């Protein structure tokens, strides 16, 4: 039921859509769609990571390396525009590296994620940079239709509702969806048009076969936990993902949103300002801990699994505080350090097994 990424991109391209390769983080998806650009997020395409070695130090995260490696492959020819989210130091310089030193001949758009605590200046600034993005797209001969933006705003609003519903069902064991299938659906959030994503989720909610035997419920946190080897392992151990605190998914889903706002730009601003706490936006540690504890309670989860990408500073700095907060609430937790695109190490398997044993 879930269209496979590369065939979906080719199909959309044949339908006249242009493709925008987006680096991880929050971005105004609806504006890109309003310019007839399909945003395809670059998290973990299967590439030879060593292509990045001439450009990046060994101590830089695998996400940055994967992006550079991907841009050096033929698959990158499918992309018409690159969209760089400025969410950390590595991606900041990566954007400049691609732009300034010719790592790609595609046009590049940049989007700064303003930091918390938000104030009236943040509101004004977001308005300015969204307008600037629209004019940047116009200059690339990709005019933005505000009517289309409005239309996609209502589709993404439905995305958000369905994702909430999906997690509610997961926590109540109503979907019986194992992590492998669940992961596939969630990952399609990074490349499907909002309308197509809704269709996929509708299928899960209404017609998905209930054949997964749940033994553990976990909240999944980290940057990009929906990696194949992790999902495969969790499936084999009958773990259900009952809630999510990942940058890939729920940290990009606003708490408040409207379906048919009067002013689409203001709606996008409001959505940004109501995003859940995330270190890439400089969120307060206490708020973030409270948020995760709330997710655990609401989803009746047994613990939290942090999947950390090696060398990811925003995540690493928060962990000791989050772990202490979870300890004080007697919530079990485990941190796994992984490299995206690489299988889970034996040490991580062992640690996960021991963690799950402890949850019994």
């Amino acid at each position, binding site marked *: 039921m879930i269209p496979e990424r590369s065939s979906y991109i080719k199909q959309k391209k044949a339908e006249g859509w242009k493709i925008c390769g987006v680096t991880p983080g929050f971005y105004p998806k609806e504006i890109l769609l309003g310019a007839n650009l399909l945003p395809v997020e670059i998290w973990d395409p299967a590439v030879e990571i060593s292509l990045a070695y*001439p*450009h*990046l*130090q060994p*101590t*830089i995260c695998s996400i*940055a390396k994967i992006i550079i490696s991907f841009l050096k492959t033929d698959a990158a020819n499918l992309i018409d525009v690159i969209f*760089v989210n*400025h969410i*950390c*130091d*590595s991606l*900041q*310089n*990566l*954007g*400049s*590296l691609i*732009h*300034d*030193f010719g790592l790609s001949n595609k046009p590049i758009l*940049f989007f*700064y994620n*303003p*930091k918390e*605590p938000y*104030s*009236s*200046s*943040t509101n*004004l*600034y977001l308005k*300015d*940079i969204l*307008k*600037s993005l629209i004019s940047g797209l116009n200059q690339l001969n990709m005019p933005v239709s505000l009517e289309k933006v409005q239309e996609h705003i209502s589709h993404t609003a439905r995305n958000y509702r369905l994702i909430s519903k999906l997690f509610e069902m997961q926590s109540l064991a109503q979907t019986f969806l194992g992590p492998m299938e669940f992961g596939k659906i969630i990952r399609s959030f990074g490349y499907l048009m909002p309308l197509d994503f809704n269709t996929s989720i509708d299928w899960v909610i209404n017609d998905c076969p209930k054949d997964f035997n749940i033994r553990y419920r976990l909240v999944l946190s980290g940057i990009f936990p929906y990696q194949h080897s992790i999902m495969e392992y969790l499936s084999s151990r009958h773990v259900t993902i009952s809630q999510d605190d990942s940058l890939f998914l729920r940290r990009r889903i606003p708490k408040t949103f409207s379906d048919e706002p009067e002013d689409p730009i203001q709606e996008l601003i409001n959505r940004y300002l109501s995003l859940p706490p995330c*270190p890439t936006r*400089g969120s*307060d*540690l*206490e708020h973030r801990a409270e948020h995760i504890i709330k997710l655990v309670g609401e989803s009746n989860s047994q613990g939290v699994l942090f999947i950390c990408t*090696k*060398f990811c*500073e*925003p995540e*690493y*700095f*928060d*962990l*000791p*505080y989050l*772990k202490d907060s979870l300890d004080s609430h007697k919530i079990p937790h485990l941190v796994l350090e992984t490299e995206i695109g690489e299988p889970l190490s034996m040490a991580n398997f062992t640690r996960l097994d021991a963690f799950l044993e402890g949850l019994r």
Partner: protein
Amino acid sequence: MSMWARMRYKAVKDLFLPFFVRYVQKGKKRSVKRPPSPPLRINKTLKALIASHYLLARYAEGAVPVAWVTSGAPVELLRAFGYYTLYPENHSALCAAQKMGGSLCSFAEEKGYSQDLCSYAKIDLGVHYSRKTPVGRLPKPDLLFASNNICQTVLYWYKVLSKAYSIPLILFDTPYNYQSLRPEDLSYMVSQIHEIIHQLERLTKKDFDPEIFSKTLEISKSTCETWKDILYCMQATPAPATIFDIFSHMLPVVSLRGLPVALRYYNLLLHELRERVEKKIAAVPNERIRLLWDNIAIWYKMRDLSNILMQHKANIVAATYTNAWAETIPYMDPHNPIESIAKAYSLVVLNNNLKHRLNLIYTLAKEFKVHGILMHSARSCKPYSVGQYDMARILSSQYNIPCLIIEADIADERYYSDEQNRTRLEAFLESLT
């Protein structure tokens, strides 16, 4: 703020400190190996300045508001409200120079902070957990003031400090310049500065005095201009100092920026360097090779690197790092203080695109007549390090300037490979002769 603490602070500042400075300047007799060229006379004054800065800091707690500040934050705003400022980055560098970096980092690592985090931050957190510092004691801050114009890491780091000390954190959020400074970025920063002023008014219960602020900005500007003059003394052949001398003299422009003492100090340093240029006193006798340095210093290896370079009659005469406090001075305008500091602080080298840095390196290389470039690829500092591989390739292939990349860390000596770096550096120096 208590009356007793204020009186004690004033007494230490006005009565005790002058004697203390003289005592430190006099110094202890040490049986050190005589360097090949006379050391700078002003080194003793620098030592006294650093010692008195940290000594007075101990008495500032409870007497005046104390702020911990990042090196790229517009400290002039705090000066207008009478804050005593300390720079954790500077303190971490000091710990590293005393070779305490690795052990302090391990205190933070024991508390769950990853080995792969910035060592400046880990040293600072290690000091918090262990209470160990070469300066005796650090005052508890009342406020944290950060700007992410140097990196996003300072924000994550200061968030942790904010919880550890239960104190407010003010952030000056500076969007990165991918191409040029956009009007929307500038107006965002200007309106933030107005908000910061209101926050400081609320915290200190004092009104903002625009006159003090402009005056502070004037002092900052003159200090940075004098700092630039100091750096440009290194254009002379032979150069009157080494980059390691210059690194050591950075404290005033980083930590005391906006205070008259920094300006007075740099006037003395400038005078001495000009005198050395005039008398052709070489920091490296028979200087043959001139180099440029990119990235933060390797604080715990300054002497060793200096010795290797000296043996090869090589001197590092310029650095993008030291230049960072001189580069954006033209934007500082005491008559248009708010907008001008927004520009000056957001256009610093680490908040500017890599093309800008490449051009800067090339310009400095020409201006200082260097034969090669040493790039320190620092595992702690991603904004300074990501892009160096490509820049090194472009500089050597397109501009014909040889480059050597040294993989190391700014403050954690556990990540330094002595043999490997010595061999590579020596081979590089030999290839330049």
